[in-house]
C-alpha cells in the first residue's frame, strides 16, 4: 500500500469549538505527527467552502487520508465521506475526531480542553494511518417473491406484489386458500361478511397471471441469501426449483386446543364448543345444541388459553372483540336467548370496537368478570331436574359473589397459537422464534415486518396475534419492502463486515456461537470459519471473541483501535519522555 499522506482539518464551528479549544494550537501540534502532510484550521468545515478546501488539498497535495476534527461523526461523517468521494478518494479513508460534543461543549477549562482535543485528533491521525479502502457492495434482486401461507396476510401480500406486475409464488401447506378467515362468518366491528371478502381474494388470486399458487406444499430446504433464494420442488421433478429474491412468511395461527383445561370439560361435554366451531354454526344458521335444541342460555368464556401461566401468558388480542361480535350475532339470531359473557378485562381497543362493546351491552347481555389466572369458571353437567344442559360456577369479581350460570351452549374463546411446524419454517428461512413460537421481528417498535435476515419478512399472526386489518396492514407493509427492493433492483449490503483470515483460524467455532445473525458458517473441509458477508452486520462481537485474531471487522480492526488508543495517550506521554510513536 502507498505511503499514507494525511491532511488534518480542525473546525472552529464558528465560536462553538474555537471559544474553548485553541484550534490553531491543535492544528499545529498535529503537523509533527508522522505522515501528516498538512494541518489546517477553518471556521466551518461542513460549509461548502470548507469542503472545497479539502477537495482542493487532496488534489494539490496528493493526500490519501483525511482527518476532520469537528462535531460528532453521527452528524457529519456522511457529509465528509461524500466530500472524499467527490475528490476521488475512497470515503472510508476518513476519520473524524469529535471535539465539539465531546470537548468544547462539555468543558470550560481551555487548557484541558485543548489538550483533550489534541489527544483526540492525534488518535484520529494514528488511526487513519491504518484505514483501508472499502468498496460498497450490492447484490441483484430476483424480482420473484415467495410467500409462505395462504391466509389473509399471505393473500394480501401476494395481491399487492402481483398487482405491481411482479411474480409471486404462493405456498400453502393445506389444500385450500383462505386460512382461518375462511372459517369465519362475519368480521367485527362492522359485521361485514368475511366470506365475501376472502372469496373475492381467492378469486382474484386464482385469476391473477402473476401469482402461482402451490397448494399442499411446505416451505423446505430454502437456500441462498437476500435477492437470490432457491427452493427445490421435488414433487415436480428432480430439477424443479423456485427462484426468488424475497420471502414473506405468513404462516398464520392455530387455535388453541382447550381440552387441556380441565374446568371447561371440552371434549366430553358435548355442548362446550370453540369459537371456530361456533362460526360454523353461524354460517349454517343452525345454532343449536347437540340434541338439536335451540339453546336458551348461552355462555361465552373469554381468555381460554390466553393470559394464564398454565396455557399462554400472552393476550390473543382478538378474542374479546370476537366475543362481543358473537354476543351481538347471537342476539340477532336468537332474540329471546339469555346471553352471558365471562371475561377478564374487556379489550375492545380497535377502531369502533369500544362502540361495539357499548352496542353489545345495550342488547341485554350479561357480562360477568372472572379472574383468568386464579379462578376459572367450572362447567358441569346440569342435574336432570334442571331445564338447562350445564351449570357453570363463576367467581364473579364485580359483585364479589359466587354465582351459578345456567347454559345450554358454552363458547370458548380459544387463544391463537403458533403452528407446530413453525420451527421448521423458522429454520429454513433463518429467522428466530420468540419464547411463544412467534417470529421475531427486526425491531419490535420500528421494524415489525422485517427480520434479522435480509430478504425475509413476516406478516400476520405468525408474528403475534392480531386481527384482520392489522394482519392486512402488516402484509401490505411487507409487500412494500419487497416491492421497494425489487424496484431498486439491487440491495446494498453492509461494508464494515467481518472476514476471516483462514491461515490464522484454528477452527474453534467460538465466533459461530457468538454471532447474533448466523452469518458465520463452518467450512468442514478446511476446518475454518467463513463469514457470509451478506448476512453480517458488522457488530464485531466475533472479532473480540476470536482467540487468534483470525476474524477481523472492517473499519474496526484491532490495529485501528489499538493505534487509536496509542494516539490518544501519546500526547500525555510525549511531555516527559520523547518516545517515538510505534506507528
Amino acid at each position, binding site marked *: 500500500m502507498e505511503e499514507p499522506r494525511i491532511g488534518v482539518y480542525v473546525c472552529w464551528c464558528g465560536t462553538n469549538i474555537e471559544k474553548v479549544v485553541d484550534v490553531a494550537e491543535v492544528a499545529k501540534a498535529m503537523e509533527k505527527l508522522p505522515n501528516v502532510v498538512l494541518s489546517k484550521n477553518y471556521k466551518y468545515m461542513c460549509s461548502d467552502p470548507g469542503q472545497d478546501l479539502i477537495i482542493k488539498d487532496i488534489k494539490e497535495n496528493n493526500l490519501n487520508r483525511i482527518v476532520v476534527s469537528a462535531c*460528532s461523526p453521527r452528524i457529519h461523517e456522511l457529509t465528509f465521506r461524500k466530500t472524499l468521494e467527490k475528490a476521488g478518494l475512497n470515503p472510508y479513508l476518513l476519520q473524524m475526531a469529535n471535539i465539539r460534543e465531546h470537548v468544547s461543549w462539555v468543558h470550560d*477549562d481551555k487548557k484541558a480542553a485543548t489538550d483533550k482535543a489534541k489527544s483526540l485528533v492525534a488518535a484520529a491521525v494514528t488511526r487513519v494511518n491504518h484505514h483501508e479502502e472499502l468498496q460498497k457492495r450490492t447484490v441483484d434482486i430476483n424480482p420473484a417473491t415467495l410467500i409462505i401461507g395462504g391466509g389473509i396476510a399471505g393473500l394480501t401480500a401476494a395481491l399487492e406484489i402481483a398487482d405491481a406486475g411482479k411474480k409471486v409464488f404462493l405456498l400453502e401447506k393445506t389444500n385450500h386458500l383462505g386460512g382461518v378467515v375462511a372459517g369465519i362468518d362475519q368480521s367485527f366491528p362492522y359485521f361485514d361478511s368475511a366470506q365475501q371478502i376472502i372469496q373475492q381474494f381467492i378469486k382474484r388470486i386464482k385469476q391473477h397471471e402473476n401469482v402461482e399458487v402451490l397448494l399442499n406444499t411446505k416451505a423446505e430446504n430454502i437456500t441462498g441469501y437476500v435477492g437470490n433464494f432457491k427452493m427445490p420442488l421435488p414433487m415436480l421433478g428432480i430439477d424443479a426449483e423456485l427462484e426468488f429474491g424475497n420471502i414473506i412468511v405468513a404462516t398464520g395461527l392455530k387455535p388453541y386446543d382447550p381440552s387441556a383445561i380441565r374446568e371447561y370439560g371440552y371434549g366430553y361435554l358435548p355442548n362446550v364448543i370453540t369459537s371456530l366451531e361456533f362460526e360454523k354454526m353461524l354460517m349454517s344458521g343452525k345454532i343449536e345444541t347437540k340434541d338439536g335444541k335451540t339453546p336458551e342460555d348461552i355462555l361465552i368464556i373469554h381468555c381460554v388459553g390466553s393470559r394464564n401461566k398454565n396455557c399462554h401468558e400472552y393476550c390473543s388480542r382478538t378474542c374479546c372483540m370476537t366475543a362481543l361480535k358473537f354476543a351481538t350475532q347471537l342476539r340477532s339470531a336468537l332474540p329471546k336467548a339469555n346471553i352471558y359473557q365471562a371475561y377478564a378485562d374487556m379489550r375492545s381497543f380497535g377502531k369502533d370496537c369500544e362502540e361495539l362493546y357499548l352496542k353489545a351491552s345495550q342488547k341485554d347481555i350479561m357480562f360477568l368478570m372472572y379472574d383468568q389466572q386464579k379462578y376459572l369458571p367450572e362447567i358441569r353437567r346440569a342435574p336432570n331436574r334442571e331445564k338447562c344442559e350445564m351449570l357453570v360456577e363463576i367467581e364473579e369479581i364485580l359483585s364479589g359473589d359466587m354465582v351459578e350460570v345456567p347454559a345450554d351452549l358454552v363458547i370458548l374463546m380459544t387463544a391463537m397459537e403458533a403452528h407446530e411446524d413453525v420451527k421448521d419454517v423458522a429454520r429454513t428461512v433463518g429467522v428466530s422464534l420468540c419464547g411463544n413460537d412467534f417470529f421475531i421481528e427486526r425491531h419490535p417498535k420500528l421494524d415489525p415486518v422485517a427480520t434479522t435476515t435480509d430478504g425475509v419478512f413476516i406478516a400476520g399472526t405468525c408474528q403475534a396475534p392480531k386481527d384482520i386489518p392489522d394482519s392486512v396492514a402488516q402484509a401490505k407493509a411487507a409487500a412494500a419492502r419487497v416491492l421497494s427492493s425489487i424496484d431498486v433492483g439491487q440491495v446494498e449490503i453492509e461494508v464494515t463486515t467481518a472476514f476471516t483470515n483462514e491461515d490464522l483460524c484454528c477452527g474453534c467455532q467460538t465466533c459461530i456461537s457468538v454471532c447474533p445473525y448466523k452469518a458465520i458458517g463452518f467450512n468442514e473441509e478446511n476446518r475454518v470459519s467463513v463469514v457470509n458477508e451478506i448476512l453480517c452486520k458488522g*457488530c464485531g*462481537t466475533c472479532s473480540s471473541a476470536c482467540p487468534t485474531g483470525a476474524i477481523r471487522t472492517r473499519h474496526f480492526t*484491532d490495529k485501528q483501535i489499538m493505534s487509536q488508543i496509542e494516539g490518544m495517550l501519546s500526547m500525555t506521554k510525549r511531555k516527559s519522555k520523547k518516545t517515538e510513536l510505534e506507528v
Partner: protein
Amino acid sequence: MEFQPTIISFLCNWCSYTGADLAGTSRMKYAPNIRIIRIMCSGRVDPTFVLKSFREGADGVLICGCHPGDCHYHEGNYKCLRRFKLLHKYIQQMGIHKDRLRLEWISASEGRQFADLVDNMTERLMELGPSPIKEIMEIA
C-alpha cells in the same frame, strides 16, 4: 499540580456514544479527563483493548454499552458483560485496582448520567492516584 488521570473509554455507537453527544448538545459540563473511542457495539471490546490502554498509560478504562435488552445487535452487551467479569478479576491479579475498569450502561437519552459517570470516575481515580502500570512502563 494535582494529579489528573486519563480515562480511555469505549462507547457503543448506538446508545452510549449518542448519550455522550447528548451531554454535549445539552452543554453538561464534566471532567476533561476522558478520551472517547467509538465502537459499533460494546461486544466489540476486546480484552486486549483494555490491557493495551493500561499499558499505554491510561489511569482508568470505561466501557459503556446499551442497557440490557436494548442492544442494537441483540446481545452484544451481554457478551461484553461476560468478558468484563473475567477481565475485572484478571486486572486485579495484575495489581490494577478494580475501580480502574468500569462497565456501565448508558442509553442515548442519558447525557446527564454520562456526565455524572465521568465526574464520578475521575474523582475516584484521583483518589487512587496514577496507575501502577505507568511506573513499570516508565510513562510520565
